[in-house]
């Protein structure tokens, strides 16, 4: 298992994790499952059922619980196992619990902190309201190369305000971009991008930014 730093990492845009679904992601080599009950916030867990090690991102959601695809064990959002179908009359021991990571939804992004004692603050992009999702891109490069690419990219008149550990900020006239940086592994980095401001209200403008991000990906991957 790779090192788990005290740091908030964006793993997805809110809308990418549909109600009643479980989805795989990787942060710094750690396999995680991001799931959402029929309603409510996203949950970020280690992608491993404590029973027989099956990936929980293959699981299915029923009645507010994430169920492992292998034996149907059901886990509540807090992580506790509440149902073992092989023994319908048995109350599962409290010790059976999925490995739950801290998670928050803010600015339209699902953030998680894999540290066992998370203290770091979330990246601060001001008030939570008004953010619109642009898109996620996955770049086949390490995070260092991707940050370098963010700094040198032609932002069509915009400029990079800051490139931090977890996020980058770009301003372009009537629009601000927040780019959450997800180190996937040694070959891949995810960027989850949201925007606010008058320039983000129009669908066409958002689509133009989505296209620019695709060019960003291409320009970083074009460098050796």
């Amino acid at each position: 298992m790779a090192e788990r730093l005290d740091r908030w990492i964006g793993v997805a845009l809110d809308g990418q994790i549909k109600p009643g679904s479980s989805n795989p992601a990787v942060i710094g080599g750690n396999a995680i499952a991001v799931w959402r009950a029929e309603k409510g916030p996203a949950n970020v867990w280690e992608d491993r059922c404590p029973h027989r090690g099956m990936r929980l991102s293959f699981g299915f959601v029923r009645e507010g619980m994430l169920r492992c695809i292998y034996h149907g064990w059901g886990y509540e959002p807090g992580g506790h196992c509440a149902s073992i179908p092989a023994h319908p009359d048995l109350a599962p021991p409290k010790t059976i619990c999925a490995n739950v990571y801290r998670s928050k939804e803010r600015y339209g992004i699902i953030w998680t902190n894999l540290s066992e004692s998370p203290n770091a603050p979330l990246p601060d992009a001001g008030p939570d309201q008004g953010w619109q999702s642009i898109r996620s891109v996955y770049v086949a490069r390490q995070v260092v190369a991707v940050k370098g690419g963010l700094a040198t990219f032609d932002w069509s008149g915009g400029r990079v305000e800051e490139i931090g550990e977890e996020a980058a900020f770009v301003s372009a006239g009537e629009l601000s971009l927040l780019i959450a940086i997800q180190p996937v592994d040694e070959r891949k980095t995810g960027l989850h991008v949201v925007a606010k401001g008058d320039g983000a209200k129009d669908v066409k403008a958002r689509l133009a930014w989505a296209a620019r991000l695709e060019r960003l990906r291409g320009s970083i991957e074009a460098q050796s």
Partner: protein
Amino acid sequence: MAVTTDRAALNEWVACGWPEKVAPGGKYRTVLLGQEIEVRRTGVNLFEVFECDEHGKQGRQLPVQAKYCCVFTTLGEPTRPLPEIPEFDEPDRRITGCGSVGVHTSPFRIIENFLDMAHFSFVHTDILGAPERTEVLAYKTEHRKDADEIWAIDCQFYQPAASKASRGGQMTHYAYRVMSPFSVMLYKNVFDDPTRNDAICLFVQPIGETECLAYMPLAIVDRESALTSIIDFQQTIFAQDRVILENQRPALLPLDPTIELPTRADASSIAFRRWLKAKNFQFGVYEKKAA
């Protein structure tokens, strides 16, 4: 890939192919416990097996036996013979292998999945298990010390379509028999005939610690079904298992019961893991790194 140094693994008979894999006079290469070997079919039911050295040249000749629709060899000095499975000699049975299926996981994950009834309703939905009948009733496990085999007996599970011969649901009665760390079989009662059992084997060829070939010879009671549809049935089941097997983490089998938490339905898995631990198996086993 280095050859394992685990004597416990080297000293077992393991499957390395099936007789019809090549025509008489033919040969093929494969890997066993990290060791490349060459299997030659010198007659209809005659085989020779050799180690290949690092340059691919012929090395030491290995013992070989063709039985139960498989070819078996060993890299070490087996402490036990191949198991007796008398069902393969009963004249009214349909005897067939099902080829081989590659699976990227520990051989012991494959054996353990074969022993497991609790997944039927979820992985083999509407075939070996029904979504609304998930309960695993209590069963017994035994370590039969004379043959050094693990058994799970008095097992039963409700199955909508227990076999190709089934024409409806039934409470199927099972007995499971672990004959070696790399071979397991089950007996399950035939549809509409509680006096007869189908015998289904699973022999695992460990290529490496997390890379295997699985062979599933059958000796079953079914006068009606075409052989191809019997084989299709088994392959459908195994394809469903394979998706699970290749997505368990770690791929190596943890023997420490605090790493993967069992429940009552896992009695056979618990017995199997204890047995591997008592044999001091290193190959294919997960060792938690010291903090």
